[in-house]
């Protein structure tokens, strides 16, 4: 078995240790004897073999970099939206999350998004910064991470990734964080997201494996004691 990961624009969107998410997905597949290969779609080399893509990852960047990326991404809008509607697995963090929506309204301009999710983002003040703990229907353990975003994202009728226990979340007031739609997982949480939330990582890997190999049942368990200690440390420290 083999899973192909596509890292979109790591040359532009690479803030906050995003490559840790890629390392986490790759390692957790390899530790189970499943092949994993990561392909990079960059400004220089942006051919995508969507038929052979099992997981797409889009990370976060600065506002300036996000604008450059957006023009590039919009050329691929139809392909990406078809991929998602057909159950393609996509993970988007921070800036990548905002780009999945209809638009991101900045002070002096509005950046058009991919319209994969029925959400929109508006720049706000102050920036929402700090450690985050979520309770989520998608994992038994709490989801932990760090947020740092100026945008307020309004998710309408979408299902959030989790409820904010500590932190600000999508818009600082609703108590919702992230979006889960079909096989899309989108969130403001970096840290990076996946290493301290191995259950969430395995959920994403399982989605990809089931789509590529319809007979696939479930992932073999791993020793996650270190991951869980790192997760629990954050939960215990910030949940009073």
């Amino acid at each position: 078995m083999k899973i192909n990961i596509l890292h979109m624009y790591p040359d532009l969107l690479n803030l906050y240790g995003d490559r840790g998410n890629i390392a986490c997905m790759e390692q957790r597949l390899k530790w189970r004897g499943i092949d994993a290969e990561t392909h990079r779609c960059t400004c220089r080399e942006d051919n995508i073999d969507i038929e052979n893509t099992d997981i797409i990852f889009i990370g976060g960047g600065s506002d300036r970099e996000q604008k450059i990326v957006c023009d590039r991404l919009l050329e691929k809008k139809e392909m990406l939206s078809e991929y998602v509607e057909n159950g393609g697995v996509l993970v988007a963090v921070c800036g990548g999350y905002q780009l999945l929506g209809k638009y991101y309204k900045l002070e002096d301009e509005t950046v058009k998004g991919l319209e994969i999710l029925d959400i929109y983002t508006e720049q706000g003040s102050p920036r929402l910064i700090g450690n985050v703990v979520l309770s989520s229907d998608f994992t038994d353990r709490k989801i932990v991470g760090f947020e740092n975003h100026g945008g307020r994202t309004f998710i309408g009728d979408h299902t959030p990734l989790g409820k904010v226990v500590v932190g600000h979340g999508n818009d600082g007031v609703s108590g919702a964080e992230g979006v889960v739609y079909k096989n899309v997982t989108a969130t403001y949480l970096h840290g990076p997201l996946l290493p301290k939330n191995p259950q969430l990582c395995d959920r994403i890997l399982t989605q990809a494996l089931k789509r590529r190999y319809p007979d696939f049942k479930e992932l073999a368990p791993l020793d996650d004691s270190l991951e869980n200690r790192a997760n629990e440390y954050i939960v215990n420290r910030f949940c009073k």
Partner: protein
Amino acid sequence: MRKLIAIWAAKASSVVGRLMGKKSSSSPGVIALKICPNLIKILSKNISKGVIVTCGTNGKTTTNNLLCAALEAKGYRVLCNRLGANMLGGVATAFAQACGIFGGFKADYACLEVDEASTLKVFDHIKPDVMIITNLFRDQLDRYGEIDITTDILRRAIKKAPNLKLVLNGDDPLCAQFGIDADALYYGISEPTLPQTDDAKEGRFCPVCGAEQKFNYYHYSQLGDYYCPSCSFKRPEIDFEVKNVSLGSPMRFTINGEPMELNYKGFYNIYNMAAVYAGMSALGEKTDDFGSLLGSYKPQIGRMEEIDLGKPVILNLAKNPAGFNQAIATVTADKRRKDVIIAINDNANDGRDVSWLWDVDFDNVSDENLNTLTVTGIRVYDISLRFKYAGVKVDFETTDMRAAIERALSTNSEAVYVLVNYTALYSTETVMLGIKKSLGK
């Protein structure tokens, strides 16, 4: 009178702080400015020859302190915020402490290390004659935000000082951009010396037109010989050129043909030396005795600081991906058998966000000369997890730095490296000095 009270208050607060065992040298200045908001402005009139400000993500403290030492060696009186308190309060503290009890103060030069984000505020109080910018890397994103925000602040600050001469790292496109249409001198390393790796995270794209830049060679991160394929922006002509680099111990190189010898570890220190050399020249000071000066200079705490605890234990501060990668390169360049200890904290001064750990190439720590690897600090699990996913075995996880060092001392290795981020620095040095004392050294 206000001035005098402000100075007394700052001095008193410094004494109280010291008695309480605090190392912060920022709060006395904050108090002084509350009493006398014009304090820096008034006192800076007593600086006869010039004010030099040093900015940049890494190398500020070393560059600033060495510049101060170079000027003092020429017999000048120099005011300097030596301890590295580099926001407005720290600058004010340096001024207040330089004053006599009756507020008297005279100096030839002021050497001020200033945090990039504080330059706008600081330049409201004092206009520098020379400004050195060492480099710009991502650093503590939760405090400073993205690097575009930092460059914007620096650009606005530079505009506030009309007669400013810039001294810029010409190898860094993010620094060199400030020299466009400005009075600028550049220093740089004009030959490839390190293994060529493309690990630039910032500054890949032309600061003028946004196109992806090309590199003839890299030093590290985005430092190197770059040019933009679509506009005229490129590595500028270098005024102070480093060449003939040999990375042994000591390191040897030339600046504009003059031979230099350096007993420090760390390739990046060549940049710090070149920055000081260029800064001296920008002030119109002679650099003919520069070589002998380097021989006698002692690095600050935690800048590859070596303490003999039966075997050499080397303490180094590294607080962002560029700094950590350079520290790791320095460790692996040392071919002795060694134990490595890494401590990661997440206090406010470290940055509360530790996701930058994943931007460091930690897999490089593991080579044939690594004996044991120990991780510690408030975020011990995060650093441990980072190593797990890098495929590097962690031998010990602990919360006790003293135990970690003592264990490393008991192995059959020849040297110990302790890499720490900011708030672990002083406590680790204290532990090391405590062990030294108990050894009767």
